[in-house]
């Protein structure tokens, strides 16, 4: 990449990001009714996917615990929502998810490959079952009512969380921590012998990546008004971020954003238009992407770009 193209590219990108943010921030003024609700869902999936990519992207550790962190956020809101102001509850939800991830990370990040994936998924099921037992036997209820917030409030909170997630993801990717995470993904043993405190780097990043998942769970809970362990710890939400990240392409930050936006939109359209065939069509799309676009949509875009620009542009 030569210097001239970097200079001309940067203001363009910044302008584009600014424009998108402006459009998102003013959305409730020009689009009412269903659109902000749809956008909230899409933003939620972007937050979950980018959070997943923060840790699993560079390290290659496939975490299936997203639903657990999300559920922790939901229950934080259900328990504290009436007692404390909204921003405080959301902050506590983020902190609670951070702590859960810290604990889980410290216990499980010594596991590698498929074992780590299975254990993290087991965590989702474990928390759900324990919570269900607790609610039925100790608190004597199954579900809980959650305070209601207006659609606009939910949307704006989600938008703020989205911006924060993107900023954190960007700074981690471009920091010393990001370099350490990549080295772990490339060769963990070599990283350790080159002075990287691999356990610390993994556990801390894993915990940071859980914060916004928990926070978005807390704000989503107010939209659902009634939650129980089955809703809060829905295993599908562990797989969606992985699928969306793969769909978009894991190597960059905009890949997961594009992947999450498109799949979340597709899911929304399919569930409303084809409620019976939704899963079938959704599955077919995913299989097609994994078979024919191993590098995700980003890979497709990059290949197309190379063809348009006449071959070799220096990669990286």
């Amino acid at each position, binding site marked *: 990449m030569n210097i001239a193209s970097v200079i001309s590219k940067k203001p363009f990108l910044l302008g584009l990001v600014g424009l998108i943010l402006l459009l998102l921030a003013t959305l409730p003024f020009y689009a009412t009714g269903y659109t902000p609700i749809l956008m909230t869902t899409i933003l939620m999936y972007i937050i979950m996917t980018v959070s997943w990519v923060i840790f699993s992207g560079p390290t290659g550790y496939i975490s299936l615990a997203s639903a657990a962190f999300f559920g922790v956020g939901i229950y934080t809101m259900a328990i504290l929502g009436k007692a404390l102001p909204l921003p405080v509850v959301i902050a506590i939800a983020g902190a609670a998810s951070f702590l859960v991830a810290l604990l889980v990370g410290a216990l499980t990040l010594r596991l590698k490959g498929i074992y780590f994936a299975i254990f993290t998924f087991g965590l989702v099921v474990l928390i759900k079952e324990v919570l269900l037992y607790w609610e039925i036997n100790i608190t004597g209820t199954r579900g809980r009512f959650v305070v209601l917030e207006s659609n606009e409030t939910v949307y704006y909170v989600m938008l703020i969380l989205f911006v924060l997630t993107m900023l954190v993801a960007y700074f981690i990717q471009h920091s*010393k921590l990001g*370099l*350490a995470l*990549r*080295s772990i993904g*490339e*060769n963990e*043993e*070599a*990283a*350790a*012998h*080159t*002075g*990287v*405190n*691999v*356990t610390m780097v993994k556990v801390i990043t894993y915990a940071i990546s859980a914060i916004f998942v928990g926070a978005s769970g807390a704000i989503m809970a107010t939209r659902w008004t009634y939650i129980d362990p089955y809703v809060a710890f829905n295993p599908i939400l562990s797989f969606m971020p992985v699928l969306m990240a793969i769909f978009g392409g894991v190597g960059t930050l905009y890949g997961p954003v594009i992947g999450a936006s498109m799949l979340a939109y597709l899911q929304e359209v399919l569930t409303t238009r084809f409620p019976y065939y939704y899963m079938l069509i959704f599955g077919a799309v995913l299989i097609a992407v994994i078979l024919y676009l191993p590098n995700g949509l980003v890979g497709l875009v990059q290949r197309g770009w190379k063809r348009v620009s006449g071959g070799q542009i220096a990669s*990286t």
Partner: protein
Amino acid sequence: MRVLEGEKVTKYFGGLAAVSNVDFHVDKGEIFGLIGPNGAGKTTLFNLISAALPLKSGVIKFRGERISGLKPHQICRLGVARTFQAVKIFPNMPVIQNVLLGSMFGTPTAMSSADATRQATELVEFVGLSAVSATSVKDLTLLNQKRVEVARALATKPELLLLDELMAGLNPTEVAQSMELVTTIQGRGITIFMIEHVMKAIMNVCGRIMVLHHGEKIADGTPQEIATSKKVIEVYLGE
């Protein structure tokens, strides 16, 4: 002065003694060689020193202090760097970033990122890879990948460098270049402990050599003493 010392270093894999009651020491500034047939426990000994494997029995001291029980990254930051028999590099990262990682994470005292970058650039030049500095390491030849490993190890500012078969798989010209590299590193004041199968190399560059066989130390001494030791000849050539 002894940089590294081992007393009764022992490691079992199940019932097999991979390293058994080995006493050794490495003096400051020397090049100390470690040889032995396949399966003699040479790499296991390196893994014990660098904490890739936990040491259960015996003592390993670096600069007079016990280092057994520390984590690999702590050993690295103390000043013991290593390379691997089968290269362990960061394949999709460019050469400069491979080396930079050592400067950024492995040095005894933290460096500013400007200093880290400067040092990494200097080391890439030192091992002769300036021309491919921005190339992904996976696209390099084996010789150059090994040089990246050496540069990355040097980037952690080690006092002691463990080289595990630096010359395996290289052609005679490359072996000669690597021998030169080893002596230049020694010239920088870094003590070297090296495992090697290429006899010509080890006999030429090492001040002292230790021989392992079935996990036990059977000899140590100058290259001449080793080359004429009856026990060593028996182990290598049979009776």
